[in-house]
């Protein structure tokens, strides 16, 4: 059967991938892209089965579309590992991401969101992504990784450079490499700086303790920090940006959200301003 053409590097595809997915689901649910050499599963049951069967569907060397992308970089990231290596690392983090721990971060996130909105209330104008959606995730991540306020913009800049993709760009670019090196050098310095401070219960503290106790190698620790800097920023900023776009496109939904009671009365002013 001939499959519909799909170029994952095409911004046109990325802007609205759903018609492609729908067509594949109907015509070729286990799709192989010959040109790029990757498989795409589009049915829930197949995806679920692939997640469970980690021996057949391994993560090592396989989390990027480009088969050799991971080998190009010197610091291994646990996202592209399989058990037992993956379990060893995840076990270290599990106690730091429980609902109780997240509640404290949630309160912090609400407080910081208001502080980011405050300066814009008087003018009534806000660049939703630049002033808020790009800054909140980095600010929260900074708590986990103990990144001082004045260094956040540069860490976020490196992370943006690392994942930026021009239309149809199908390999790592010099900008991507520069972002990677920027993050690597930053976290090398950051770990060195905190190496002798006691574990304060933060994610950085857990990583450094893991290195000291030889549960993780130094390269794995730096790789994990780079991974968090990308994974924590990019995803959440885009989710918030998309949320704002959708609310703007659907004013009725926006009014419903605006009417919802908020746990903190002070945040109502912020939402109303948005």
């Amino acid at each position, binding site marked *: 059967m001939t499959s519909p053409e799909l170029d994952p590097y095409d911004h046109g595809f990325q802007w609205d991938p759903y018609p492609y997915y729908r067509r594949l689901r109907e015509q070729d649910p286990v799709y192989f892209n010959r040109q790029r050499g990757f498989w795409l599963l589009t049915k829930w049951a197949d995806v679920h089965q692939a997640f*469970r069967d980690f021996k057949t569907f391994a993560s090592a060397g396989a989390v990027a579309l480009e088969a050799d992308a991971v080998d190009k970089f010197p610091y291994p990231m646990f996202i592209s590992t399989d*058990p037992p290596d993956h379990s060893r690392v*995840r*076990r270290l983090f*599990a106690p730091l991401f429980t*609902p*109780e721990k997240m509640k404290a971060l949630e309160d912090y996130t609400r407080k910081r969101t208001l502080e980011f909105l405050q300066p814009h209330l008087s003018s009534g104008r806000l660049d939703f992504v630049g002033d808020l959606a790009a800054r909140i995730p980095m600010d929260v991540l900074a708590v986990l990784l103990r990144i001082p306020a004045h260094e956040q913009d540069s860490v976020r800049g490196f992370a943006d450079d690392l994942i930026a993709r021009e239309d149809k760009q199908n390999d790592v670019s010099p900008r991507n490499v520069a972002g990677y090196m920027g993050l690597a050098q930053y976290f090398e310095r950051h770990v060195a700086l905190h190496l002798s401070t006691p574990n304060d219960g933060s994610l950085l503290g857990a990583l450094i303790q893991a290195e000291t106790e030889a549960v993780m190698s130094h390269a794995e620790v730096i790789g994990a920090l780079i991974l968090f800097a990308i994974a924590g920023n990019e995803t959440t900023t885009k989710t918030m940006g998309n949320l704002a776009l959708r609310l703007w496109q659907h004013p009725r939904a926006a009014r419903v959200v605006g009417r919802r009671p908020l746990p903190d009365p002070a945040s109502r002013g912020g939402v109303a301003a948005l």
Partner: protein
Amino acid sequence: MKVIFISSEGVRQAVEVQPGGTLMEAALLNMVPGVEGMCGGVCSCATCHCYVQAPWGSTIDAPRAGELEMLDAVTHRRADSRLGCQVTLTEQLDGIEVLLPPSQG
């Protein structure tokens, strides 16, 4: 060490694991049907729900507040309900028998 999972229909599956992991991991590493572990073990999805019966129940640490709160939301709650990701496997638990609920969620 050995962990024995028993489905709600009574099908037994014994798996061999290293101590130090959790009950949820023991199930997932061996693709035991009926355990999902969606959140990866951070006590926030309750899809690793299981029953740890006597005498094993008394040999493991009691659930903490966060686990009990999550257990309040599961469908097939029992007095011996646990979240598998919150039970760490030690050598003393070699041979532990774990019953699985009819469904997760």
